[in-house]
């Protein structure tokens, strides 16, 4: 087949650089969501960085004479069974939760993309071996892997990060491999080879940068699932135990009180959900933006 048709399409995208859209009203709503998501993420980042500016009480302060107080103007999110201010706890708890989310994505993403890159770029025997390894990791569902690793390493922030990170490796590796393989077939890679660039340079300068955007999208989405996985570990009793609990621990500790003091675990739950939701929204938007099919090449 002549591939002129495809070229025509490519042609088209150049002249179509103006994004077609359907209705302004609706698009504005979608934008509003993304804007809100961005706001939420920024706020939560602020919570993680400077909780003392935001939280009205020290997170560990126990007012034992006012335990299990429902939300009020004094305690926006009520108090927990120690008499701690739930709002302050949620604010402070963001730090470890976000850390788990971000770091495990960084670690897992890095490891996964190294594996995926090697596999995709080297191809052949390497590909076969590495992909088998990834397949093996895939057959053990992520949370189980995390469970085993968390159990092996014991509690601790970095251990949780590691457990969650390892569970994420196969996904990153697969995406990266696919991306590398698709880029490897592009004409500009042939062009780079034909001007005499070394394999390593081609990889460094062309293949890798081109592969990063889907990885970025995945990483964004991964932050959400990592936070959820961390919370899941807390639920199963393998989570982080610290003076200032993270969201997962808050949620998991407060769940026994749902019938008598719904606020204790509802707010951390909402915090997780909202954050993950926002991250996903942004990730989706990022994907739309970076999607090679929609992009301005």
């Amino acid at each position: 087949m002549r591939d002129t048709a495809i070229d025509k399409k490519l042609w088209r995208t150049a002249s179509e650089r103006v994004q077609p859209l359907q209705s302004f009203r609706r698009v504005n709503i979608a934008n509003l969501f993304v804007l809100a998501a961005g706001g939420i993420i920024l706020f939560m980042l602020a919570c993680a960085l400077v909780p003392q500016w935001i939280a009205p009480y020290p997170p560990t302060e126990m007012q034992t004479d006012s335990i299990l107080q429902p939300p009020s103007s004094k305690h926006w999110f009520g108090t927990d069974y120690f008499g701690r201010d739930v709002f302050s706890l949620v604010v402070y708890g963001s730090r470890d939760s976000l850390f788990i989310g971000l770091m495990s994505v960084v670690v897992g993403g890095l490891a996964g993309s190294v594996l995926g890159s090697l596999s995709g770029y080297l191809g052949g025997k390497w590909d076969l071996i590495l992909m088998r390894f990834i397949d093996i990791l895939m057959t053990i569902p992520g949370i189980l892997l995390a469970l085993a690793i968390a159990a092996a390493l014991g509690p601790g922030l970095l251990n949780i990060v590691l457990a969650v990170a390892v569970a994420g490796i196969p996904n990153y590796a697969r995406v990266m491999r696919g991306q590398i393989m698709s880029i490897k077939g592009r004409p500009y890679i042939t062009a780079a080879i034909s001007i005499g660039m070394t394999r390593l340079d081609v990889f460094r300068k062309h293949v890798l940068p081109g592969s990063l955007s889907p990885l970025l999208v995945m990483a964004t989405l991964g932050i959400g699932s990592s936070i959820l996985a961390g919370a899941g570990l807390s639920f199963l009793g393998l989570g982080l135990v610290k003076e200032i609990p993270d969201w997962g621990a808050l949620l998991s500790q407060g769940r026994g009180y749902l019938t008598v003091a719904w606020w204790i675990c509802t707010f951390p739950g909402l915090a997780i959900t909202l954050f993950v939701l926002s991250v996903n929204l942004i990730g989706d938007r990022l994907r739309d933006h970076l999607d090679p099919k929609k992009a301005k090449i």
Partner: protein
Amino acid sequence: MTRMIAGRLASSLLVVFGSAVLVFCILYLLPGDPTNTILDPSTATPEMINQLRHQLGVDRPLYVQLLDYFGDLLRGDFGRSLLDSSPVLPKILTSFPPTLALTAASMAISVIVGILLGVLSAIHRNGWIDIFARLVGLFGISMPTFWSGILLLLIFSVHLSWFPAMGSDGWKTLVLPSITLGIIGSGFIVRLVRNSMLEVMNEPYIVTLRAKGIVERTVMYRHALRNALIPAITMIGMLVGEMLAGTVVIETVFSRQGIGRILADAIMAKDLPVVQGVIFFSAIIYVTVNLLVDLSYTLIDPRLRRSL
């Protein structure tokens, strides 16, 4: 066709064994040992512990245990639980049906809800339905299951008494857990189906169909959807893994019988043979489902039929 299946089976077997070895190694590194669960640490003497360790055979080097394990496995012996000495195979076989039922029901919910919302969302792109469906999808993947599970339980079981709060017998006990788990899956599927529907809707053959004057409903459901499902099906294969894993939490929340809980308990108690057995089984399930998924492609996508 048979050749391809045979090849796939062979490599799947390899993968399953690989995962068994990997898990064995990870668990070997776990600190502590099963004697902790068996003996009361406050009264147990070191001799008692050592003796028990020897009885259980957990004091041997890793490779000996590993070889032993696989030797037995080849003879169809999955070993015995270190904790209660019961054979692993029957333990798994009795716990598997509820887990499978849960996984299957959750998958069914994910797939039905996911595809329905995904399609509606793509067809009414940027409309209210789309916004709704995408939010449902997002919420689905953004909520911790143990939280949403307990919320559902409090509402539908404690307050409304519509469904039982726990247990694993009868379809009624499946409702809440499978919804909890299904929401996640549908979240993934909505997004995927929506994207691939939108992609397919831009394909030239959709224009052809319209140019032929085919009714829009036929264009969407008989043509666009069928093509859009192909990537969704891969997702389904992957989701089975997620769902199987999800049962760990769900089975605990809803006190269901199942391998998820067995596994979680076994991991924490370092009950190697049980962990091995369960991982082995779920790996087999996972691999089988993915094999089936690959085969089912060919039902939908004739392009692949020739490659068989």
